[in-house]
C-alpha cells in the first residue's frame, strides 16, 4: 500500500478532537479565576477547595466502595459465565444465556436503571427485601452490567490460550477443579485484572443507573458532579476531573504495560 497524506492527517485531527477538550479542562483546573475559560494566573486553590468539601469527599468514598465491591462480584460472575460460554459448547438455554450476558453491554442505561428500580420496589413490597434503596441496590445494579464487561474480556483470553495445557494436567490426573485453579486461572490472570479494572472504572463512572436505584443519603460521586455541572461550569469540578483523569491514565498505562509484558513474544515478520 502506498501511504498517502490523507490517513496521517485524518488520524492526527481525530486524536486532536479526542484530546483537546480534555487538555483544556486540565489547564483550566489550575486557573485562578472563577471564570473557567478566561486565564488569569496559575493557582492550585481549587484543589484545596475540593478537599475541604465534605459532601464531595463522602460521595467519592461511597463511589469507591461501590466500585470495588461490584467489580469483585462481577469478576466472579463474569469469569464463570465466560468459562461456561467458551468451554461448554452445548447446553440447554445457551442462546438465552449468552444473550443475557451480552445484552447489558448495549442496553440503554435509562432502561436498565428503571427496570432494576421497579424490581427492587416490587421485591420490597412482596418479599420485604431489599429494605429501602442505597449502597446495596447500587452494588447489585453495577455488578450486573460489569459482569457483562468482565465476561467479554475473559472470554477472549480463554478462547485464545492453548487448551493442551489443561488437557495435559487432566491426563496427569488433576481433577477439573484443580486444573482450573492451577492451570487456567494463572493463565487468564491478566484478563481478570483488566476485567476488574474495567468494572471498577465503569461503576465509578455510572450516573444514570445509580440515580434510579439509589436512595436518600446515598449520592454517588457522578450524581454530585452532575448536580454541580447542571448549575454551570465550576472550577472545582475541573480540579476533580484532573485528579480522576490522572489516576485513570496511570492505571491504563500500567495495565497496558503489564499486558504487553505478559503476551508471549511473537516472531515479527
Amino acid at each position: 500500500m502506498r501511504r498517502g497524506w490523507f490517513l496521517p492527517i485524518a488520524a492526527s485531527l481525530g486524536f486532536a478532537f479526542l484530546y483537546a477538550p480534555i487538555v483544556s479542562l486540565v489547564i483550566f483546573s489550575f486557573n485562578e479565576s472563577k471564570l473557567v475559560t478566561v486565564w488569569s494566573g496559575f493557582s492550585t486553590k481549587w484543589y484545596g477547595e475540593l478537599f475541604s468539601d465534605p459532601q464531595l469527599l463522602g460521595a467519592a468514598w461511597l463511589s469507591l466502595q461501590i466500585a470495588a465491591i461490584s467489580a469483585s462480584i462481577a469478576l466472579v460472575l463474569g469469569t464463570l459465565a465466560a468459562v461456561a460460554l467458551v468451554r461448554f459448547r452445548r447446553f440447554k438455554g445457551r442462546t438465552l444465556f449468552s444473550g443475557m450476558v451480552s445484552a447489558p453491554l448495549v442496553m440503554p442505561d435509562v432502561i436498565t436503571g428503571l427496570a432494576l428500580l421497579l424490581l427492587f420496589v416490587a421485591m420490597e413490597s412482596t418479599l420485604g427485601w431489599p429494605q429501602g434503596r442505597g449502597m446495596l441496590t447500587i452494588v447489585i445494579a453495577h455488578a450486573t452490567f460489569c459482569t457483562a464487561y468482565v465476561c467479554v474480556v475473559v472470554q477472549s483470553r480463554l478462547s485464545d490460550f492453548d487448551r493442551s495445557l489443561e488437557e495435559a494436567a487432566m491426563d496427569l490426573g488433576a481433577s477439573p477443579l484443580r486444573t482450573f485453579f492451577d492451570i487456567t486461572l494463572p493463565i487468564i490472570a491478566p484478563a481478570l485484572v483488566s476485567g476488574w479494572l474495567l468494572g471498577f472504572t465503569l461503576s465509578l463512572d455510572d450516573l444514570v443507573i445509580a440515580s434510579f436505584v439509589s436512595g436518600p443519603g446515598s449520592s454517588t460521586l457522578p450524581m454530585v458532579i452532575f448536580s454541580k455541572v447542571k448549575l454551570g461550569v465550576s472550577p472545582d469540578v475541573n480540579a476533580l476531573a484532573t485528579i480522576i483523569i490522572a489516576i485513570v491514565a496511570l492505571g491504563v498505562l500500567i495495565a497496558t504495560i503489564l499486558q504487553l509484558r505478559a503476551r508471549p513474544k511473537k516472531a515479527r515478520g
Partner: protein
Amino acid sequence: MTTAHEPTIPPPRRLRPWNAVERRLAKVGISGRVLVLVAPVLWLLVFFLVPLAVVFGISLATKQFGRPPYSALLSTEEGTVQLTLHLSNYIKLFTDNLYVAAYLSSIRIAAIATVITLLIGYPMAYAIARAPDRWRNILLMLVVLPFFTSFLLRVYALTGFMRGNGVINQFLGLFGIEPLVMMQTDFAVYVGIVYTYLPFMILPLYTTLVKLDTALFEASADLGARPARTFLSITLPLSLPGIVAGSMLVFIPAIGEFVIPSLLGGPGTLMIGRVLWDEFFTNTNWPRAAAVAMAMLVVVVVPIMLLQRAQSAVVEK
C-alpha cells in the same frame, strides 16, 4: 527415556482435597457444569431478565398516589382474583405527539451522529491498522484512554469547550470572528455523541481492518485499480462487519442517551431517554415511564440483533 518400573502411576496425594470435594458434590447430583453455571444464571435471571418482565407488567398499570405509586395488576376480592391490565400508557404513546416526536428525533439524532462518527472513525481506524507495529499499541491505547476517563467528565469538558466564552470562541475571536452559539443546540448533541462514542466505533473497525490481507491490495493495484477503486471494491466490503458492529455500538446507546442531551442540548432537543427520565423523576408517572422503556426496547431490538451477528463475524474472521 523409558520408564523401567511398572506403568501404573498412582496419583499424587496432593490431589485428594479437590477430588474429595468433587466426589461429595457429585453425590448430591451437582456436576462441574452446574457449579459453573448456577451463580451467573441465577444472578442474570433475577437482576436482568425478571426486571424487564417487571417493567412490562408495570407498564400495564396506572399511576396512583401512594407507595408504590402504581396500581396493582392483581386484586383479590371476595375470593376472586382479578387481573386488571391498562393499555392507556401505550395508547398515549401513539396518540400524544410528544412521544412520537421524541422517538423520531432520537432515531434521527442517533443516526446522524453515527454516520459522522463512522466518517471520522474509519480513517482513524485505518491509519492505526496500517501504522508500523511499534506505533500500533500506543495509538490504540490513546483511543481507549478517553473511554476509561469518566463519560460525564468528558461531556463536561465539551461544555467548557463550546460555551459562549469557551475555548473555540476565544480562538475564533483571535481572527475577529463573531462568537458562535454552539451550546444548547442539536449541533452540540451531535458533537457530544461523536466525541464520547468514537472509541466504540474505532475498535471494531480496527479489528476487521488489521486482519485484511495486504496481498489483496497489491493484487488490485497490479491489475490497474487506482487506490480509490481498491478501497471501494475491496477494503470497504471486507470491513463491513466492523462498520456494522461499530455503528450499532454507537447507535444503540445514543438512542437512549440522557446525559448528553440534558447537558449539551437545548430545551428543544427531544430525546427519548430524557423523556423517560422526566416522566419518572419529574412527573413520577412510573407506569408511563415503563411503557416508554418498553417502546424503546422495541426500537433497539433489531439493532441489537444486527450487532450480535456483526460481532460474531468480526471475531471469527
